[in-house]
């Protein structure tokens, strides 16, 4: 038996109201808002956040494989899963894989994980899906697309939901796409994309799955459909025979937007949050074909709900103060640079040496006097004992802001930089930037948590590290 043992999700704290976007271009006041990753987030950092939500304190050394799914991996050639597994402090002898380039990448990864577990080549597999896609300014895709991530642990024991069936269709069509030379996602005229794409293929795939597993729409408590916008799912679901009011998982179009390869996985996480033991779920994703899964929720589900998930992240939000800020964050408009020397390129060698300290946020703790220190030391700052250290990870520890400054002079995409000195419960200190903050809320003594972020992009290298942020509640 294969299934899901845990789920997690991530929605960036910032939201941009669609009315603010249309106001910028003089268009009609579109409704709802979309989730907007901060300037220091990308699909890797969001996948990390969802995976941490999913793991929720579990030992990452028990994981055998990590699959990362996205259409917006930061690198065209370099595996994101390798980075994510290093951040999550997984063993090096795992199987890591990126599944990319299709809106179905998230469910492709779930299918691959399921097959690996069924074939007993792995016991525990982490699947994370994240996307941050761009539509051209003043276009429908800019309005529609939001950013987010979901993560699932798959295994064969202690399942919160069993995966009882899978059915797929592969379909060659140019409906929604982005070439290797494009920054923005393109789409063909929407009558065509619906008639011969989404509506047709989803109908065929779900019909095929129902037929294969001898099930009817009424056998499902909830049907989770990828939906390119708020309305698209309606006609095909109705045609398939689902009751729109009671059976269809809300696609979060008005609150998050279309999160691409992460959307179907995020909606599944949302469905699991509400699920009761015995519920049967249908999961349907779309992109160059269609993947359909049939799941049954087990009594273990109740023990898996102690996380932020979709609900927690949805509730915790800050409104972006302007559309211009979004354009700046995504490097869509150029602005006057800070009158400071250009940022330098990190050394690949130095980053390689620092992969445990910088990515998994390990320091060291003195075995002689018990003082945790970051970065890892060889001689203790407190008692000067030499080589008496054990590894000490700071990533998940409670922390408070010891002192700070809002720096207007430092070069920044979203000035000022809130330089922060963070003290950890149990000892240890890190000086880092604070992100996802509003200036007015920052004060000495406030509780903060650590979050994995992109700290610069120079010389073709994405440099990742950790920042603190106000405790997200």
């Amino acid at each position, binding site marked *: 038996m294969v299934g899901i043992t845990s789920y997690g999700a991530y929605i960036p704290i910032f939201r941009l109201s669609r009315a603010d976007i249309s106001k910028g271009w003089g268009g009609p006041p579109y409704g709802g808002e979309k989730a907007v990753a901060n300037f220091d987030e990308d699909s890797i950092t969001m996948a990390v956040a969802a995976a941490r939500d999913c793991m929720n304190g579990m030992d990452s050394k028990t994981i055998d494989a990590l699959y990362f799914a996205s259409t917006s991996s930061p690198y065209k050639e370099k595996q994101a899963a390798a980075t994510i597994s290093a951040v999550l402090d997984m063993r090096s002898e795992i199987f890591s894989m990126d599944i990319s380039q299709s809106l179905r990448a998230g469910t492709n990864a779930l299918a691959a994980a399921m097959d690996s577990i069924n074939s007993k080549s792995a016991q525990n597999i982490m699947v994370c899906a994240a996307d941050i896609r761009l539509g051209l300014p003043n276009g429908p895709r800019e309005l529609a697309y939001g950013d987010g991530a979901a993560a699932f642990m798959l295994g064969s024991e202690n399942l919160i939901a069993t995966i009882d069936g899978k059915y797929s269709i592969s379909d060659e069509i140019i409906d929604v796409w982005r070439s290797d030379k494009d920054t923005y996602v393109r789409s063909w005229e929407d009558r065509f994309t619906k008639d011969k794409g989404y509506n047709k293929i989803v109908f065929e795939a779900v019909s095929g799955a129902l037929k294969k597993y001898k099930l009817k729409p009424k056998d499902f408590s909830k049907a989770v459909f990828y939906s390119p916008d708020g309305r698209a799912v309606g006609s095909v679901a109705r045609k398939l025979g689902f009751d729109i009011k009671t059976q269809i998982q809300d696609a979060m179009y008005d609150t998050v937007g279309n999160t691409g390869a992460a959307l179907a996985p995020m909606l599944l996480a949302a469905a699991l949050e509400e699920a009761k033991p015995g519920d049967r779920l249908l999961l349907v994703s779309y992109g160059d074909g269609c993947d359909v899964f049939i799941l049954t929720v087990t009594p273990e589900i109740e023990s898996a709900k102690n996380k932020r998930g979709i609900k927690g992240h949805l509730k915790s939000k800050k409104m972006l103060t302007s559309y211009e800020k979004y354009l700046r964050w995504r490097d869509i408009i150029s602005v006057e640079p800070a009158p400071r020397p250009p940022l330098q390129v990190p050394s690949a060698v130095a980053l390689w040496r620092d992969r445990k300290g910088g990515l998994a946020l390990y320091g060291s703790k003195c075995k002689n006097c018990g003082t945790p220190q970051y970065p890892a030391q060889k001689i203790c700052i407190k008692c000067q004992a030499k080589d008496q250290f054990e590894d000490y990870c700071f990533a998940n520890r409670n922390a408070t802001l010891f002192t700070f400054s809002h720096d*207007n002079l430092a070069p920044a995409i979203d000035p000022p930089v809130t330089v922060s*000195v963070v003290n950890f419960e149990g000892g240890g200190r890190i000086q880092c930037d604070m992100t996802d903050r509003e200036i007015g809320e920052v004060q000495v003594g406030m509780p903060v948590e650590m979050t994995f972020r992109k700290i610069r992009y120079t010389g073709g290298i994405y440099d990742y590290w950790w920042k603190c942020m106000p405790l997200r509640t």
Partner: protein
Amino acid sequence: MGSIKDRVAIIGMGCTKFGELWDMDCKDMIIDAAYEAYEDAGIDPKDIQAAWMGTYVSGYTGSMIAEPLKLMYKPVTRVENMCATGSEALRNACYAVAAGIYDIALAIGFEKLKDTGYSGLPDSELAVEFVLGKTDTYRAPTFSTPAQFALMANKYFAEYGIDPDEGRELLAKIAVKNHHNGALSPKAHFQREITIEQALKAPMVAYPLGLYDCCGVSDGSAAAVVVRSDMAKKFRDDPIYIKALQICQGPREGSLNYEWGYTNMEETYRAGIAAYKEAGINNPRKEISIAEVHDCFTITEATIYEDLQFTPRGKAKEDIEAGSFSLDGELPINTDGGLKCFGHPLGASGLRMMYEVYKQLQEKAGPRQVKNPSLGLSHNIGGVPGSGVCSIIIAGN
């Protein structure tokens, strides 16, 4: 352990005007500072037996001074200690003379910061080292130097229950004092008075530090000629004697030890204790006549009052409000305007501080002359709170 007290004297000093010296390069500044010092000492350039040169980013090796000054094949050493570089050049020259190896040595510092096209220091990146010590990864906060000192300001306010607005006003008073003194200093970068209102309304650089909380970024050079004390009177009637030379390097404790408090700089405190001991000073507030301290930011000056034991911990506020450290106060501090107004060409600043101490002790400080000075102190730091180095030099007549 030995002591430098009264073993070395300064017989001549020079200092260029500090500021935006668009029409001078390093060599022009070096020649002006050195020749003013030679002339003041009454020596011939050929009398210099060895030299120590300090610059942070404006040159490498002793050739930077050997060439313009035509120090023909003499022993010249370049030293570097970030913003405390100037003091380091003087310290090395003094020790060499005290060791009896040389009779007459030159210490010179310089920096050319205004050719870069940037405001602030030219190396936002190098300073990452000071905070996390992670070479070349840039896995550190993104910051400018003012922010590192602003960390101390916010913590100081929180620790001593000072409302941030009140705290900003308090710091503004330090800027107003130093601008007053700078207005009396012909060689200072900024020579005009400001008001508290101006300081408070100025653009924010790194909260809570505004523009007037930050020192000037300047070009400049300063130099000293040092000799053994027993020779000093042969050159002039009023040589200035070195009473203490102390340096204290912090082990980056501020980022490694979570108990480190960010309300002061331990390096300053410890260098102060060592310097007072070497000079035989028991009550620094009473015994020191004038102090030039490293007011790179107003909060730095406020905490220096406490670290140098001029005022008890947490009580800087009372002395700032009482004007204890103004030109006519109990202990005049930064009589030439300090880094705030005289400006801060990194490699030159330590020697510029000593230039003011030297002139004050010789009672040649013009309109800013303090009464009957006997001991002067210069305090010069490099790095940032939590990861600093501090040089303190005490001199007397």
